[in-house]
């Protein structure tokens, strides 16, 4: 990844035109040719620097449900429990964190009822308490990570 790739990533995290020639417009704003922008995006996707070039949906507006859940997993059972949790397709992210609550994961399901069922099933299969921490309010953040 070079300086131009960084500029592309930084600029196109905040928006992409919805117009007939969106890559041309975006390229012009960056001082690049349309062809160069297309080629570089292709490469960044192939190298998996980008997970996607496209839309980020509002999952809840689409009818889906999300929650954040945490567990206190005994160190000696960590790998086993991570395997169980990750095996659920509803688990979108799972992170180990430094705390007594040491496993934190995000669940995403098509309906709110499925969330509850999945949390219950994780408790049943692991024998551990799952703390459900659904969001009450999401504060607007212009999520952008400088490349």
């Amino acid at each position, binding site marked *: 990844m070079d300086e131009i790739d960084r500029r592309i*990533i930084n600029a*196109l*995290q*905040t*928006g*992409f035109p*919805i*117009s*007939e020639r*969106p*890559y041309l417009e975006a390229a012009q704003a960056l001082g690049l040719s*349309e062809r160069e922008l*297309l080629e570089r995006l292709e490469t960044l*996707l192939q190298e*998996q*620097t*980008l*997970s*996607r*070039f*496209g*839309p*980020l*949906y*509002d*999952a809840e507006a*689409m*009818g*889906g449900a*999300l929650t*954040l859940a*945490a567990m206190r997993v005994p160190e000696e059972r960590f790998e086993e429990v*991570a395997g169980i949790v*990750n095996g659920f397709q509803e*688990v*979108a*992210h*799972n*992170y*180990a*964190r*430094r*705390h007594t*609550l040491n496993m*934190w994961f*995000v669940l*995403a399901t098509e309906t709110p009822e499925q969330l509850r069922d999945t949390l219950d099933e994780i408790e049943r299969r692991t024998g551990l308490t799952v*703390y459900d*921490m*659904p*969001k*009450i*309010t*999401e*504060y*607007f*953040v212009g*999520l952008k*990570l400088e*490349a």
Partner: protein
Amino acid sequence: MLDARDFELLAAIQLGLPISPRPYRDIGLALGMTETEVIARLTVLKRIGLIKRLGVIVKHRQLGYRANAMIVWNIPDAFVKEIGRRISQAPFVTLCYQRPRTLEWPYNLYCMIHGKDRDTVLQQLEQLGADCNLDRFDRQILFSRRCFKQRGALYRTPEPAAPAELAHG
């Protein structure tokens, strides 16, 4: 209101836009829509917020963001909305949520700071504490140790599936 064709369109682009000079025409060809219709529908979907944004979705760890902290505070209910709003305005804060307390976990305000090194994140946190007068509240800092799994959550819309993604760790 949204109709079936909007959902078809959302499903068609969920994993990405074509990397080609006329991407909206190409999408339309696959769906039997004109380029004009695709552009008009996407403009509305974006305006109403169903599409939060359009563009590059990065893998933050690939970009070197490995010092990622979730910070949780116990803020009195009367102040939590105001403080949440202020925290979310800091340029280095990447997510900010109010969540319910539980008996064992008294924290009700969560934010993420994604950083490339731990010292920078801790400095930013200190600055946040000073700017938002947070030092009087109990808090915990949870750096991520390992990422086991990270993918865009795939949603089945009436037709299949829309990704939503949160950079949590």
